[in-house]
């Protein structure tokens, strides 16, 4: 079966000021699969993730060379609409970061920013997002309460719901479980498995077991270079590169 790619990255070089953070990255991200980016701290995996929805724009002296195509469009083209890109490529961050508003308003935030005002539609969107993020039963009676009153795991699922509410095509996850306890982590992982039916997911993780458990493809980064990228089971069972083997067997990192 031929897989369709949502992202096509070619010759991507990224500098923070004079410091180069990514070297000649080339990879494709297949649709409706979970792609995990692994590697030691500072290897550039988060940087790569953020260059997929151009969150790196926010960093002052970040400079990008090369080509990142989303559905065949160069997202770094100067006429490319970033805002639109971000509505289609959602993101979940390392630390749960619900806005200081109610649960409902948090989820409705994105659609509202897009000009959705109709109460009924919003209700529907919020409910659907909560159901899809497996949070609905827990919060359905307290939608008006502050989002910060939720537990850490719930907050993270809320952030996922918030991303889902935009009905994106891709969801980028930057170590979404690193701030959570094992039970909450398990719930999120379960959720990711559910979500991949409808969404393409790119996840940065520190936790190799997690990558092994949930991802279809895994990319291993070291010092800003893409060392190896393949089906997850292949990476973990018979890595082709020595560094990859060293890393996943825990010899460094």
């Amino acid at each position, binding site marked *: 079966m031929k897989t369709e790619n949502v992202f096509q990255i070619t010759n991507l070089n990224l500098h923070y000021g004079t410091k180069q953070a990514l070297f000649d990255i080339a990879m494709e991200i297949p649709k409706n699969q979970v792609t995990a980016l692994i590697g030691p701290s500072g290897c550039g995996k988060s940087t790569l993730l953020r260059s997929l929805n151009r969150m790196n724009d926010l960093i002052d002296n970040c400079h990008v060379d090369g080509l990142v195509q989303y559905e065949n469009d160069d997202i770094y083209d100067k006429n490319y609409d970033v805002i*639109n890109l971000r509505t*289609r490529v959602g993101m979940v961050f390392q630390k749960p970061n619900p806005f200081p508003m109610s649960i409902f308003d948090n989820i409705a935030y994105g*659609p509202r920013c*897009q*000009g*959705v005002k109709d109460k009924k539609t919003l209700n529907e*969107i919020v409910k*659907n997002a909560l159901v899809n993020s497996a949070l609905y039963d827990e919060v359905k009676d307290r939608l008006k309460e502050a989002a910060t009153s939720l537990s850490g795991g719930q907050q993270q699922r809320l952030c996922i719901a918030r991303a889902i509410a935009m*009905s994106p095509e891709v969801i980028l996850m930057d170590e979404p479980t690193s701030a959570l306890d094992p039970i909450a982590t398990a719930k999120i992982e379960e959720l990711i498995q*559910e979500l991949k039916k409808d969404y393409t997911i790119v996840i940065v993780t520190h936790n190799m077991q997690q990558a092994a458990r949930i991802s279809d493809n895994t990319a291993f980064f070291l010092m800003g270079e893409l060392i190896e990228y393949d089906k997850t089971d292949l990476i973990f069972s018979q890595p082709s590169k020595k560094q990859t083997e060293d890393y996943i067997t825990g010899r460094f990192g």
Partner: protein
Amino acid sequence: MTKIEFNKDTKFSMKHNKKTDRIMQNILLIPTVLSASFVLMILIFISQRGVAPFLPSEYGNESVNFLRFITGVTWYQPPNSYGIFFIVVNTVFVVALSSLIAVPISVFTALYIAKMTPKPISKFFQTIIELLASVPSIVFGVFGLGVITKVVLWIASIFGLQTAGGISTLATVFVLAMMILPTITLLSITAINSVNLDLEKNSLALGASKMQTYFKVTLVSAKSGIFAGIILGIGRALGEATAVSMVAGNAGSGPSFDLFSTTRTLTSTMLLGLKETTGLDYDIRFSVGMVLILLIILTNLGLNYLKKKVGRFS
């Protein structure tokens, strides 16, 4: 799992999105430029009014001789012998004396609050100082006129000296010292708190006593920050108006260094005898204001230069 799609592009086209941000950026530039323009406005409009008294085109033969203005040692209304030299000298004298009183007290207080007392007491004292900092000038004025002048009167009577009801240089100095004390103290506390604790520990380990450490290590390391506080305090003292003019008196000539005689500062000159009039006696206050601004700028430059020299080891 259902996916609810909504149209993301109808209302907010790509151009629109970029435009809103750029428009907003430009809109927000307006209040910012406005906020920043007030300093320039002050300089321009006050100079404009302040120069008028010297122009024969404005005041004909009543116009003030500029040279006399800056060198003069009398300040009388008519005949307009407005001379600001002695007022500047008196102002500097009064401010210098008040900082001489306020600085040691402030630094000691800061040391006490930051180092020498347990947390609850230190918090309590810091709050007290903060409250003192927020007491409005006019209240200091009432207190100054009601109490400080009487204290000065009492001091004068001890030494058998004369004073015009306590309204005097000394009263002005006391009131100013009271007013700048909290400013200097609060900044000194910050400065002392930011001194690396390791330095103190090292000093103690070398056998220095706590007091020696505080004076030789802590204060020395914090001197740059303390100096910043002093600069701020002196700035405040120079510009303080209401309370000062209530206790300064209205000396018509000078300079006078007699603590128990009346004095005249730049700010008291601007407020005293203000009769809500237009005309020369009103406009000349703008000239005094110009001199005050100049004095504050010069003092700041001078003190900052000094601060750089003092702080070159830290």
